[in-house]
């Protein structure tokens, strides 16, 4: 602690640490269980969260190739390069492949580390800079993006914790 970047970095580490705890010990069946026919399951949500971090940091802000593609995760997880999760139908969520969550988390570790490194490299003036988010077709401010990543990823974490609670009860 000790720099102006700390609230954001601390929040990112907090939600990510809690995510790891929240998925611990879940069976493949629990990971794929949906509380309603149109609800996401935990495995899909974790994968989508990793994709969100990767895309915002590496593609939208830094303008590089996503780790998803650059590091061969599409092959390792057997998914297409453009698969991201936003706007998917309930059928697509239901038919999500039962991939090993350890592999998804390995990808997520890399994406999470890349965001932290990106923040360390940002200067104060960068926060005012706009970047074009291609998949959303809009220009967004880097400062807004940082707050948004924290809010979006934490929302998904809250959903995972809630779905675990539905399955395992209060202390499960």
């Amino acid at each position, binding site marked *: 602690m000790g720099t102006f970047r700390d609230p954001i970095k601390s929040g990112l580490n907090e939600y990510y640490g809690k995510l790891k705890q929240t998925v611990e010990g879940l069976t493949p069946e629990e990971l794929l269980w949906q509380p309603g026919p149109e609800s996401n399951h935990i495995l899909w949500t974790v994968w989508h969260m990793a994709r969100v971090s990767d895309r915002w940091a590496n593609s939208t802000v830094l303008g590089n190739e996503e780790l998803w593609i650059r590091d061969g995760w599409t092959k390792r997880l057997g998914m297409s390069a453009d698969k991201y999760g936003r706007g998917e139908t309930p059928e697509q969520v239901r038919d999500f492949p039962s991939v090993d969550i350890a592999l998804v988390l390995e990808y997520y570790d890399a994406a999470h580390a890349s965001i932290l490194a990106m923040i360390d490299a940002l200067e104060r003036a960068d926060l005012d800079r706009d970047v074009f988010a291609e998949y959303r077709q809009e220009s967004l401010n880097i400062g*807004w993006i940082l707050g948004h990543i924290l809010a979006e990823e934490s*929302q998904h974490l809250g959903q995972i914790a809630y779905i675990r609670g539905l399955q395992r009860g209060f202390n499960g």
Partner: protein
Amino acid sequence: MSSFKDAVKSGMTEYLEELKEKLEGLSETELHWQATLDTNTLIWLVWHMARVEDNWINKTIAGGETIWSSGDWARKTGIGADGSGSSQKMDEVRAFPQVNMRILISYYDEVRCSAFDVIDAMSESDGNNEIDRGRGPITWNWILGHVVVEESQHLGQVALIRGMIRGLDG
């Protein structure tokens, strides 16, 4: 946006705006629905979110009174509980009173207004100020990040519960 605390404020604005959208049009019955005996209701979550932000920023960081107590919101909302809900038992969640959501949101808006004043008044070095609530020292910077993470988690739950009740487009 010229500082990272603006990024925090932007995240806070985002989750409160989205919360209001997610609550739109829900009936009393839906607001009090429990998915299982161990899960929180929507109305309880909204109250808890407002209390959490009030406690962390207006009381813990600013060192003053919460808006809940200075604004006499226990009386205005009819909620008798002292705390913020953090360690409540499930029977307390179930016994949560019928509350007017608009009044609850007015309380949240006042909390937010005050919280932004507190954050605006923080200098960069203030972020390193430490407090100890009995579980080891935490900094004000930690609290700012934590507020966005905790509140957004609850918003995610609100959205999920709405989806369970209404489906994807409901």
